[in-house]
């Protein structure tokens, strides 16, 4: 390969990365000249729009592989589903950016400019790489590009002890997991001599080394997707981070990590369908019961996210039983449905917190729907979607998963799954009780932040949750 010429596919795959990186650099330059928040936001939005638009051609192509490696394989490989997830991640970042802006400005005395937008732009870049990575180098770098800005974003509200604590916890455990990932990759490579994504699935064939390597990689990825028992960081980090950042973690990181797990996870001969189902049930069980008694809505949503991972593992189980294509469409739909609801929920909580005094404690959110009808309504839709109530995307997402399970002959697991899901209804319903049915908490005299931008941003995932719930075809048929 001529080092200075790139193929069309290479450009296609590199385009969103270039858009994002360029926007990040431009923001940095602009800010260093003179901080102009409106312009910077415009540039960031432009970069993300450009990235998103540049990915649309990928939706129409069967499969796009770029940056081919001489020995076979490629650095990046995108499918329509992965492209859609990538677009979603960019959108999630944009959402997080625009909902966070005003709150951060108030907290950090207006110092949000430089770092903030650059970090927000780099996150989706890492997500896209993680999603599309077809080579261990791309995967590892993608995960790091995704994680490093997030560690910082989590700790962004430096005046807030919780935020800093969240940052350090996330960082330490993330680095620990990175160690596992690196060592795992190395062992897989030692076993197979291959760094491509195909190496992991067949690692066991090369003997114990590959097996252990695949296992260590699996562990690292399970940490990233927050599956039990590697989920313990989630609640603390989600709770402590600025809420829009939490939204980005929940929607974007989860999507990227789950997709990575699908491509980089061990094959069915290593983890059979029942293994995934067992892992899913365990995660569902732990996530749901952990969330059950939470007095803080953010923690509750964080742990419910764990439970959602459990349900996604059921789709993995169906895939292990042979339904590859269906599993991809199911997982894609599920991730977007969950992500939209999570964005809406956390975004709404951000607005609620600005009034309740900075936390999502249930005590402070009592009767919220009456004080802030828009926030209440958005949360209602989001919670119902997370719970999986019809007319929201959340329902069809669960429906598709269970269809795949039954189709794969995992009916008993499906029954266990639905019964475990029931627990999740208990806490979603209780959250609705808090928001709608209890008398409002005594109002704290907090000056309300008027934030039309965030409010408008909130409507997007909310509306999409319902639109995809009513019309799943465009997403599900990818």
């Amino acid at each position, binding site marked *: 390969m001529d080092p200075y010429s790139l193929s069309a596919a290479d450009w296609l795959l590199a385009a969103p990365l270039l858009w994002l990186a360029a926007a990040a650099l431009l923001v940095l330059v602009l800010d260093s000249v003179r901080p102009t928040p409106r312009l910077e936001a415009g540039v960031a939005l432009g970069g993300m729009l450009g990235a998103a638009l540049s990915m649309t051609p990928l939706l129409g192509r069967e499969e796009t592989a770029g940056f081919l490696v001489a020995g076979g394989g490629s650095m990046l490989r995108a499918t329509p589903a992965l492209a859609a997830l990538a677009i979603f991640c960019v959108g999630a970042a944009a959402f997080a950016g625009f909902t966070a802006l005003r709150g951060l400005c108030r907290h950090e005395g207006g110092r949000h400019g430089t770092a903030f937008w650059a970090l927000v732009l780099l996150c989706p870049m890492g997500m896209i790489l993680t999603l599309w990575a077809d080579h261990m180098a791309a995967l590892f770098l993608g995960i790091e590009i995704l994680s490093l800005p997030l560690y910082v974003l989590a700790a962004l509200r430096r005046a807030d002890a919780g935020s800093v604590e969240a940052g*350090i*916890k996330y960082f*330490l*455990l993330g680095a*620990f*997991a990175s160690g*596992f990932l690196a060592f795992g990759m190395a062992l897989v490579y030692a076993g197979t001599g291959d760094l491509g994504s195909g190496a992991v699935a067949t690692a*066991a064939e090369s003997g*114990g080394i590959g*097996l*252990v390597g*695949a*296992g*260590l990689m*699996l*562990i690292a990825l*399970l*940490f990233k997707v927050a599956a*039990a*028992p*590697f989920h*313990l*960081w989630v*609640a*603390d980090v989600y709770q402590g981070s600025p809420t829009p950042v939490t939204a980005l973690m929940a929607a974007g990181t989860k999507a990227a990590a789950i997709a990575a797990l699908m491509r980089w996870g*061990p094959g069915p*001969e*290593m*983890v059979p369908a029942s*293994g995934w189902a067992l892992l899913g049930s365990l995660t569902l069980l*732990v996530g749901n*019961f*952990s*969330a*059950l*008694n*939470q007095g803080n809505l953010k923690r509750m949503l964080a742990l419910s996210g764990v439970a959602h991972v459990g349900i996604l593992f059921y789709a993995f189980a169906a895939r292990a039983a042979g339904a590859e294509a269906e599993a991809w469409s199911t997982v894609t739909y599920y991730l977007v449905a969950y992500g939209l609801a999570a964005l809406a929920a956390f975004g709404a909580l951000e607005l609620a917190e600005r009034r309740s005094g900075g936390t999502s404690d249930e005590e402070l959110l009592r009767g919220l729907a009456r004080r802030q009808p828009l926030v209440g309504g958005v949360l209602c839709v989001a919670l119902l979607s997370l719970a999986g109530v019809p007319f929201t995307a959340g329902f069809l997402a669960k429906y598709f998963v269970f269809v795949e399970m039954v189709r794969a002959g995992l009916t008993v697991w499906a029954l266990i799954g639905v019964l475990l899901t029931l*627990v999740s209804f*208990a806490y979603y319903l209780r959250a609705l009780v808090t928001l709608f049915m209890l008398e409002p908490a005594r109002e704290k005299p907090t000056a309300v932040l008027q934030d039309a931008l965030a409010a408008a941003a909130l409507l997007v995932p909310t509306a999409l949750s319902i639109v995809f719930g009513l019309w799943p075809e465009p997403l599900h048929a990818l």
Partner: protein
Amino acid sequence: MEAPWLWLITLLPFLGAAVNGLLHARVLLARAAGVADDPAGERLVAWIGTLAVAVPFALSVLAFVRLQGMEPDARLLTASLGDWIHSGTLRVGWALAIDPLNSVLLLVVTGVGALIHVYSAGYMHGDPGYRRYFAYLNLFVGMMLMLVASDSLLGLFLGWEGVGLCSYLLIGFWYADGEKSDAARKAFLVNRIGDFGFLIGGFLLFWGDAGTLQLDGLNAAASAGTIDPGTLRLAALFLFLGCCGKSAQIPLYVWLPDAMAGPTPVSALIHAATMVTAGIYLVARLGVLFAVSGILPVIAIVGALTALFAATIGLAQRDIKKVLAYSTVSQLGYMFLGLGVGAYSAAVFHLVTHAFFKALLFLGAGSVIHAMHHRQDMLEMGGLRSRIPTTYRTMLVGALALAGVPLLSGFFSKDEILFLAASGDTAPWLLYLMGLGGAALTAVYTGRLLALTFFGKPRFDEAEVHVHESPRSMTVPLQVLAVLSVAGGLLGIPFVMHPLATWLEPVVGEATAIARGAEHHGSHALEIALLIVGGAVGIGGLVFGLRRWQGDPAAEKARMDRLEGIWRPLANAWFVDQAYERVLLAPLRGLRALCAGFDVFVIDGAVNAAAGAGRAIGERVRKVQSGATSEYALWFGLGAALLLLIFWIGGTP
């Protein structure tokens, strides 16, 4: 023959009920607005109420006449209004069918009913619920007519439960008194037990395999043998259970004495003359079916037992209405005895005469109570003979008829039943002796009633109670009924005339033939002998009763104390209510409490325990999130080690 106008007979009372109900609503509204009742309004209501029954009476006469104009075997008038319930093979219409049997009952119901309406106009005067009362009474007559005139078991059941409802409403008419409401409820519930039997009986007949609920169809199916004999027997027993409820037979008679809580005209109409005879009507109506089923002996024995048993209780009651109530139970027992020995027309005969004289007695009792300012205890009466002469005279006639004094209606009807019992197939002499014993007791308590009420010295404070004769609206019906009580015998005088039997022959002939065989067993000699015995017992008992209880109450009291052992059970109706309470109701209440506890602690307890367990698990799992990063890392390591081990064990070939 199609006769759509028959519907007028049943619908007019309903119309009257509706109009009176609306008038009642108007009065209530006026009262709410503070306007006093319009006294003139009562007359209007009475007129509407009475006409709503009197016109059907006239129409019933017309129907009777029409029937008479036909061939004996073709005597049938029908009227249909289309389907009521049609589902699958079940098809029941809104249809009436009048034949000789129910034409008689139509006459009795509307005739006696009209008289009682007239009587009520006076009796209920000044009651705040005057209009409501007439509305209920009209409704009752309508339901009773539906019962009698309907051509299907289901239509009959509509009336059957309908009259039960009206009975409920009227017994509890003075609802402010909780006991009266309880009595009403008891009546309804006991009847519902019977209705349960009725329903099951109907189901058994239809599915086993009569395939119809038409009354004539059922009879035909029974005689054609379409119905499996075992099923038929069971079905007939269940239906008879229904009859026991409605017609107050052992074991379901307990509601009737309590039903005396209602206004006295109601007792006369519903609980003596009409509703309680519905059971007799049903057995007679389905005569062939019952005859084929082979349960007639059961009916006879139950009837005879009831006749004797209730009479003993009647002997010791102090409440004038209670005496009459037990008397009614007893007399209904006679009718069932008659039916049980296949004497269908005799039973109907007794039904008719009983309607006359018992209505008369009740209305007379009502007049007495009216005169005594609503005192009903006979021990507080006495010497009323001269003070309310009309009442006394008419009641005397009724009492004589009840006691079976020769030549009065009750004498003939009762003795016909006794004779047929004695000449029947089932334990003839036992049944006869039971019946005769009952008759003797009847005469005795009738005499006692007369003695305590009308004879001797007044045992009440005359300064307080101003005894007065009732108004004409009340006495005229008494007089009419007195005449009927005397003349009723003309419907069937042995050896002389049997107009009723002849009239009923086309309907009950086949059933009688099946039940008793073609030929009559009894000889004329026997019949005459029994007539004489019956008459003698009647007169003797009456005289005994009159003399025995005419003395002064103090001596009476002493005598009663001496007979405590016999008297107490009698006065307390053999403690049957108490026994039911202990054997049936108390366990049922216990079961209820058990279920309630089970529901709360076991079923709901399990649900809440599941929720609690979930929450407890949640609390435990939540504690794992201790906030310590090192512990999270430890869990990470633990998970990693375990997962790798499983991987290794599962993955290494």
